[in-house]
């Protein structure tokens, strides 16, 4: 009778049955790791060394696109563009002989690891040895892949690429604008999410009504907002309604409303699926105790459904964070700009795509922690620690 309880608090770890290791598979693993490490760590070290002791702009860099032609009489010289020194270091590092050596070394080590790993893994007597042999081979594949990408990368016009994407000098003094942009993106995303969740829960309840007259408008709403592009919704609500009807909404406010309306449609479907996934017996039990339909929903069904839909809802939220960038079509004041708009404006004025690199970093800074959160919540729900799933 108490067994269920005893198992719940059980933290005994199972025995490790992977068995001992051996020198051969371990060295395969070592070679594989070395292959990947040489090409990744080595390249980074080269970049750092060039950045610190690179020694300035070379004529090759200037001629290759990091300089502007200056004609004085019959003589043609090159004047370095803004940020050229740093860019030249990046390019020189990639093109250096040391980098070539690293690439060759990585390919050789990779091939050794792949060939030896795949040929011996079947004969390994323990799980641990087999895993080490296989992992070594996989690391070799990774190492060669990175090396091949670098070779391909070096074969192109590195100076132009670096000037367009890695000229961090152009970002100088833009930190404040980027932080404002991130704040606005977060406000738009959270505002849209919160509005969307409230609206979605109501819509979900309506779509579950047994009266078609109640269901039909909710379904129509959901289908409309899921069926038209978000960019169309933003444009029509702002240019069509807010401006056209002379309603007193700013572009930012309109966008907040549209994101809520759009998110409401998507989260309604998530909630509906969550509510329908709760066993029918729960509703029967609640109704049998004399609860009304709404009481049963509120005290029995929705609390369970909400826990089940947390992962898909967070998923929708991550999508919304990125979709807030569509607000760029509305034309925002400087203080209202979101992250993408800031980058877009920077690009327009400088014609330098490094702004978009910074934008990506900004979005990742917001979304990566959230994705981590989603994963850990999913894991917690799966492991049944909340006492909800698994019943």
């Amino acid at each position, binding site marked *: *009778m108490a*067994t*269920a*309880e005893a198992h*719940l608090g059980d933290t005994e770890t199972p025995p490790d049955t992977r068995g001992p290791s051996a020198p051969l598979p371990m060295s395969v693993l070592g070679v594989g790791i070395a292959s990947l490490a040489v090409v990744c760590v080595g390249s980074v070290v080269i970049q750092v060394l060039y950045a610190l002791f690179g020694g300035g702009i070379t004529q090759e860099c200037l001629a290759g696109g990091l300089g502007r032609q200056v004609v004085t009489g019959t003589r043609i010289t090159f004047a370095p563009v803004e940020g050229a020194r740093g860019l030249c270091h990046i390019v020189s590092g990639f093109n250096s002989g040391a980098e070539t050596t690293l690439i060759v070394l990585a390919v050789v080590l990779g091939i050794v690891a792949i060939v030896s790993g795949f040929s011996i893994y079947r004969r390994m007597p323990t799980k641990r040895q087999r895993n080490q042999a296989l992992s070594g081979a996989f690391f070799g594949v990774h190492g060669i892949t990175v090396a091949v990408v670098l070779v391909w990368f070096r074969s192109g016009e590195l100076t132009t690429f670096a000037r367009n994407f890695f000229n961090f000098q152009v970002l100088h003094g833009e930190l404040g604008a980027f932080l404002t942009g991130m704040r606005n993106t977060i406000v738009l995303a959270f505002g849209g999410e919160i509005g969307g969740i409230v609206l979605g829960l109501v819509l979900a309840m309506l779509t579950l009504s047994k009266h078609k007259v109640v269901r039909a408008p909710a379904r129509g709403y959901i289908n409309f907002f899921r069926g038209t592009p978000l960019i169309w919704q933003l444009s029509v609500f702002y240019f069509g309604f807010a401006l056209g009807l002379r309603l007193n909404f700013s572009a930012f406010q309109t966008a907040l409303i549209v994101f809520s309306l759009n998110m409401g449609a998507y989260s309604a479907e998530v909630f509906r699926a969550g509510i329908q996934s709760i*066993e029918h*017996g*729960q509703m*029967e*039990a*609640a*109704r*049998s*105790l*004399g*609860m*009304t339909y709404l*009481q049963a929903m509120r*005290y*029995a069904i929705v*609390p*369970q459904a909400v*826990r089940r839909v947390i992962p898909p809802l967070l998923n929708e939220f991550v999508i919304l964070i990125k979709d807030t960038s569509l607000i760029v079509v509305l034309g925002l004041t400087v203080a209202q700009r979101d992250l993408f708009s800031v980058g877009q404006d920077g690009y327009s004025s400088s014609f330098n795509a490094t702004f978009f690199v910074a934008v990506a970093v900004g979005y990742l800074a917001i979304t990566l922690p959230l994705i981590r959160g989603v994963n850990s919540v999913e894991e917690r729900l799966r492991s*049944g620690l909340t*006492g*909800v799933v*698994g*019943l």
Partner: protein
Amino acid sequence: MNGTDELVRLEDIHKWFGGNHVLRGIDISIEGGKVLVIIGRSGSGKSTLLRTINLLEEPTQGRVFFEGREISDIRTNVNEVRTHIGIVFQSYNLFPHKTVLQNITIALEKVLKMSPSDAKERALEQLASVGLSNKATAHPGQLSGGQQQRVAIARALAMRPKLLLFDEVTSALDPELVKEVLDTMRKLADEGMTMVVVTHEMGFAREVGTRLLFMDEGRVVEDGDPKEIFSSPKDERTKEFLSHVL
């Protein structure tokens, strides 16, 4: 309406699920203080009949009376009626996100509008009656099937129902857990609770039942004293069924 101790009366109940005619004209009357046991092979309509009594299944045709009032009438406040008719399900249907105590108090507070302290007091009292006082703060997932089913019984009893329905409550239990649930039910019967029990436990039916219905293909085939029916069934179908299960 007529008999003073008549609690439930079913008049010509028919139920269709789509084209499936599950109940084909049921007329029974249930008296207070009795234990009515319904047996029959699966698909005979016994669970549907039971669920018709608290209107979890709405009869396609026919009328249901509770304490002389027609509760199948569309104007009836079904929620109010259900507070007087408890039901225990085969799959317990406890609320997994609430503790054992909350499972019992939630309806007391939200439906019967009891104060939280009164509700808690009654819930603890009810848990004690099924021998689970020490599980009040546990979640249903931490309990064995038998314990969960006893909590479900306590939850139904806490509403102080006039009638308690049991829908194959031991069918989902491991054999060694069946007895604790049957013992709880036997105790209730001894205390005079009116019960309608759909079951496959023939020993319980014979021993605790004061009246037995045998159902087949949506009809009541045999209706009478359990011991008599078990020892000398009149209908051929009853004879055949009993020869298989006894």
